[in-house]
């Protein structure tokens, strides 16, 4: 993790000073009913709440903006957004990654206008102010003639966010006083590493992310990826045709599989592969390593599987083989897919491993941004398989995720009206915290994954932050 020191002070912690009361007198606290476990639909459509989120969610938490393999060389950069703030993610000459506010301190224009490239400096096209890769002010045309000798150059660098990298995924945070990234991930780190840190040289992106616009509030996607296992059997029921399964059968619908939630609002659903292995092996007992050899973790080609076996303990290998952490998310806006089990049209296994963010564009639009990963040492045929498997099911053209992009706008649209926003979203189905015997991982473990525990944990975290109680 690279340390970085913002040049300007962090925004004042208004949460303590501003009473969290909306203009019509409604307290933010009134939008969540902790006893009944309901959340007011209003949160999905209120512009005032969106403005509060820019401060209390986006400027305070560790936000995923990319993967370090996108900018391998000094000077490489990509442009991204943190909440509604444009940023530049750039590799410095010393190899460290810097996250700079992409706003010129002179008059406020975005400094960097390409989505990617390689620069020695950043020059604003408006008046020509120039900044180094670490954001510091390098110079301005006619600097002496305009400003004399007294220019406070230390005040006119590009503002820097803190940067944290874990398993190649780049997180940034504007809040100097926020806990470290590892503390932020807390119990989720165990599952995070099992997904993203398995082989010796790790993962890299296949290429730049898919980016597309959905007319939905960002929380529609975020709270679904907070562990909504329930919707899969209905919204994605065509998957049953491909799997040859009856999605109306509660056991087939994976409704018995465990789901993990952690205090900061992260979660992961662990698919239960034991029935499949039992059916395939006729009840014969085999080791976790043998199971993984039959169905390697996504992103890991067979020839690299020995690295996974060497690097992980027996308990972790068993978790990966029997109940792999497959689908979930990180607070506030990251979705994770890590599965080898949704087949291609010929029913051969389709491995895909990806993370995606839901970046707000105002209260009723978001940008869906999806990165696809593969082991650095994977050969071209394996990359081809990952490419085919991912685009078949995930992202804009994916036959599974395409239907999510239909329902998120429907939910946002449904939340807008005066009468409708008095309604609530219900999180009544709680399983409680009952880990199966011998469960090796951390966090709260809920059975089955179709219940609401992890989504309720997400909202609990959301309201802690929004009401200034975090």
């Amino acid at each position, binding site marked *: 993790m690279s340390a970085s020191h913002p040049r300007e002070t962090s925004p004042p912690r208004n949460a303590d000073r501003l009473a969290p009361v909306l203009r019509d007198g409604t307290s933010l606290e009134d939008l969540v009913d902790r006893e009944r476990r309901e959340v007011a639909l209003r949160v999905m459509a209120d512009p005032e709440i969106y403005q509060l989120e820019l401060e209390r969610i986006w400027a305070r938490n560790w936000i995923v903006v990319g993967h370090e393999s996108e900018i391998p060389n000094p000077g490489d950069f990509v442009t991204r957004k943190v909440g509604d703030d444009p940023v530049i993610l750039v590799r410095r000459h010393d190899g460290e990654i810097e996250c700079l506010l992409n706003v010129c301190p002179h008059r406020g224009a975005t400094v960097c206008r390409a989505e990617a490239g390689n620069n020695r400096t950043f020059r604003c096209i408006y008046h020509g102010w120039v900044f180094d890769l670490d954001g510091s002010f390098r110079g301005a045309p006619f600097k002496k003639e305009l400003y004399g000798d007294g220019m406070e150059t230390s005040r006119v660098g590009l503002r820097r966010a803190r940067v944290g990298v874990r398993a190649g995924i780049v997180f940034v945070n504007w809040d100097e006083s926020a806990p470290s990234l590892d503390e932020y991930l807390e119990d989720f780190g165990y599952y995070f590493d099992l997904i993203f840190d398995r082989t010796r040289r790790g993962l890299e992106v296949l290429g730049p992310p898919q980016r597309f616009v959905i007319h939905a509030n960002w929380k529609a996607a975020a709270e679904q990826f907070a562990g909504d296992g329930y919707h899969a059997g209905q919204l994605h029921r065509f998957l049953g045709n*491909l799997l040859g399964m009856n999605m109306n059968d509660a056991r087939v619908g994976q409704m018995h599989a465990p789901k993990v939630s952690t205090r900061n609002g992260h979660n992961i659903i662990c698919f239960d592969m034991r029935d499949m292995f039992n059916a395939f092996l006729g009840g014969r007992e085999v080791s976790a390593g043998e199971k993984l050899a039959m169905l390697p973790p996504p992103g890991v080609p067979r020839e690299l599987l020995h690295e996974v076996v060497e690097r992980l303990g027996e308990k972790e290998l068993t978790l990966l083989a029997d109940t792999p952490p497959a689908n979930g998310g990180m607070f506030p806006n990251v979705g994770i897919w890590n599965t080898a089990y949704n087949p291609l049209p010929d029913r051969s296994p389709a491995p895909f491993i990806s993370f995606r963010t839901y970046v707000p564009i105002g209260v009723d639009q978001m940008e869906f941004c999806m990165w696809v990963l593969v082991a650095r040492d994977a050969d071209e045929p394996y990359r081809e398989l990952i490419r085919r498997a991912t685009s*078949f099911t995930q992202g804009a*053209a994916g036959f599974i995720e395409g239907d999510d992009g239909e*329902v998120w706008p429907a939910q946002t649209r449904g939340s807008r009206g005066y009468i409708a926003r008095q309604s609530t979203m219900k999180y009544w189905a709680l399983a409680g915290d009952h880990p199966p015997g011998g469960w090796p991982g951390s966090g709260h473990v809920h059975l089955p994954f179709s219940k609401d525990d992890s989504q309720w944990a997400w909202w609990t975290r959301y309201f802690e932050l929004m009401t200034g109680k975090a």
Partner: protein
Amino acid sequence: MQNVANESALAEQTDGARREGAAPLRQVRFGEAVYDEVMHFLIEEAHLLDEGLFSEWIELLAEDIACTMPVRQSLHRTQGAGFHRSMVWMHEDMASFRFKVQRLQSDSAFNEDPPSRMRRLVTNLRLFETSTPGEYLAQSYLLLRRNRGDAHTTDTLSARRDDILRRADGGWKLARRTVLMDQSVLGMPNLGIFL
């Protein structure tokens, strides 16, 4: 699928004299009989897709059809067009197309039911003979307007399509398609449609 990239390299040869030493493909001119046939094919294909006649559309595809759509980034002029063939929007073959048609015809294709209403304008055909007899490289412009539900606005997608069309059984089959979109950020919630 490797040859998709190769066919696209072939397409790039037609973009001018930038690639020195590459033999230029002979261009089939507007008004030649083959040009008429290919334009007719593309117009009929657009009709089938816009009218939702997917079973009939599948019949236009060669068994070895490969269709891809690379992601792109907005780069400075000196850095090129910004396409990355390593990362795609879609990557289809006959099996995946058949599966997706089967889904569209089921009662569970929620993102296309009610269906989009679309008009695709296919124009500016530039046609070239390839080194394979009976196969032609067809570059066309696609302007697709897509409306859904009761939205008063219409989503737009514009692209260049590089196709390989093959003479077969007295007609034509689509053998390769690369969709080169103009947007780096797609302005639609899904690509549950065929391009």
